[in-house]
């Protein structure tokens, strides 16, 4: 490093005697020229992020426009009155329902997920048979690898009215078939079960890693003091897991306004009867955009979602950072 930059250093000194502004500009130009290879290597990333992340940001003005696809984002006329799309959105029952469903369902998913993942990690950690532990861990991790579309097919296999396995079972015990695809009230539970089925094994991995990293001497000391296994879990394992739990939960709360579109679309799809409990912001925006073509309403909903999500992500990350510097995303 030193040897290579030595001549440049001398050059810098010579320049210092001359015009200061000149020197700084030359410095920048020279830096860029010198590093042009690195900049070229960054170019694909820079371009892709610009096209698919930065350009869409300019689209945040769409809800304030009377959007016309032909005229484009900037060519379209301003909305008159400016907040018309928002007034329309906020007065719609569907939007209120979608916001409510998004938040309530996410709270449900986060809470149940936490209990299941920590609980399952603790259980796996208690298992003494290595082989059994490895096989069960592999099996529970497997569903993470398939798409929600396939999970949707599985769910349909289990729940459909004529041939579904669950309905067959209900018939067998004499409880009669249930038409699940018209019972909106059951779907928060069904979706929770589906998520737990799909990602419990995945979510457990991080907690299990935290558990295995706990120094064994804590447990040894505790058992010498006569602590039972339950007491050891209560007073050693759980407190040691706390930072991981808090941080993962905070980061999940940061995304509370964003529903997993893939899951809702694949599991519920166009089953309108289920919308009272399962229509979320993302599916509402999608339908307005692709099916009813109501870009004004879709963009207004998306705008509010983006702004709230931004504030939530920043604050939850700030909180996570305060607890543990290394766990924050940035």
């Amino acid at each position, binding site marked *: *490093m030193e040897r*290579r930059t030595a001549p440049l250093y001398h050059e810098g000194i010579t320049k210092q005697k001359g015009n200061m502004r000149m020197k700084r500009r030359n410095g920048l130009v020279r*830096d860029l020229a010198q*590093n042009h*290879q690195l*900049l070229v*290597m960054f170019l*694909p*990333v*820079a371009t*892709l*992020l610009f096209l*698919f*992340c*930065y*350009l*869409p*940001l*300019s*689209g*945040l003005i769409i809800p304030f426009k009377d959007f016309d*696809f032909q005229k484009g984002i900037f060519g379209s006329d301003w909305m008159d009155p400016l907040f018309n799309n928002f007034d329309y959105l906020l007065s719609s029952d569907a939007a209120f329902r979608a916001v409510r469903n998004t938040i309530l369902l996410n709270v449900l998913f986060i809470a149940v997920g936490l209990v299941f993942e920590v609980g399952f990690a603790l*259980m796996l950690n*208690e*298992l003494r*048979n290595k082989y*059994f532990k490895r096989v069960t861990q*592999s*099996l529970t*991790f*497997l*569903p993470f690898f*398939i*798409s929600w*579309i*396939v999970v949707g*097919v*599985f769910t349909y*296999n289990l729940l459909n009215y004529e*041939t579904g*396995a669950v309905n*067959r079972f209900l018939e067998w015990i004499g409880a009669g078939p249930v038409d699940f695809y018209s019972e909106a009230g059951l779907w928060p539970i069904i979706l929770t079960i589906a998520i737990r089925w799909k990602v419990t*094994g995945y979510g457990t*991995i*991080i907690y299990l*890693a935290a558990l295995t990293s706990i120094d064994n001497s804590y447990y040894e000391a505790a058992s010498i003091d006569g602590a039972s*296994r339950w007491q050891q879990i209560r007073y050693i394992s759980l407190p040691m897991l706390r930072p991981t739990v808090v941080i993962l939960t905070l980061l999940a709360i940061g995304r509370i306004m964003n529903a997993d579109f893939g899951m809702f679309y*694949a599991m519920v799809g166009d089953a309108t009867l289920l919308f009272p409990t399962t229509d979320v912001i*993302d599916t509402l*925006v999608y339908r307005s*955009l*692709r099916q009813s073509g109501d*870009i004004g309403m*879709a*963009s207004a909903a*998306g705008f509010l979602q*983006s702004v709230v999500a*931004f504030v939530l992500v*920043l604050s939850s990350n700030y909180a996570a950072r305060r607890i543990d510097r290394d766990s924050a*995303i940035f």
Partner: protein
Amino acid sequence: MLTRRFSLSQAAIGAIVLLFSLACLFPFIMVVSGSLSTENDIVNYGYAFIPRHVTLSSYKILLLGSSRIVDAYIISILVTVIGTVLSIIVNGMGGYVMARRSFKYRNVLSIYVIITMLFSGGLVPWYIICVRYLDLKDTLWAMILPPLANAFNMFLIRNFMMAIPEDLYESAKMDGASEYRIFFRLIAPLSVPVLATVGLFVALGYWNDWFLGLMFIDKQELQPLQLLLRTLVSNVEFLKSSSNAAAMQQISATIPSESIKMALTVITIGPIIFLYPFVQRYFVKGLMVGAVKG
């Protein structure tokens, strides 16, 4: 001594873990069994663990009778392979640039990348940009380019590369190697663990993706496998509009709708199930890396 004292709770925990593991496996077995069953058995007896009468007719119809499935398979493979290769190169180079400590502008570029994790324009502007301005509608690129540059993956790669001693870069530079050469010949081979992990996650993402297809692909012949599966689930009859409907008729007079859905599901998840035992540990490793610093 300890083991005996808690054998009861050990057994209870083992039972719970076992039950949950079997529950995770159960739907897979049901789908395979359904795909091998005759339509009559499914309609009369529902889905079962073991097919009453084994038949391969739904697979025959899918693979021989309908060119759509083969087309969709090719599309999915193309998207996965091109997407994964490009992703490793693009994000690898991005991570490399951000990992160069002696590079003066690496922090500026890092911020440029981090911002994309914070702000999002949302679905509507993203869709309009892709369709109206970038003209991606009904192209293969629509399923590859939008998620290609990924901030999270890039930081994962960057963090790994930052652990490589800076002297290595510098000595290579002094030997007159260009940055491209240093990356492709020196750093990339040293970073195979992280590049492989990222590549596997990306490949899984591309294979399982149907959202981009749903947004941008209206042309039937460009539909990826996952999207075709969804179309088939809601409407089996569309297979009849396929080009070789006649060949299909020869195999079976009526389309066995239920078992054919199962057969396509098996075909869709087949590669994943097949590769799962080999790649699983890399995913676990990748998660650990991500957990240490997300």
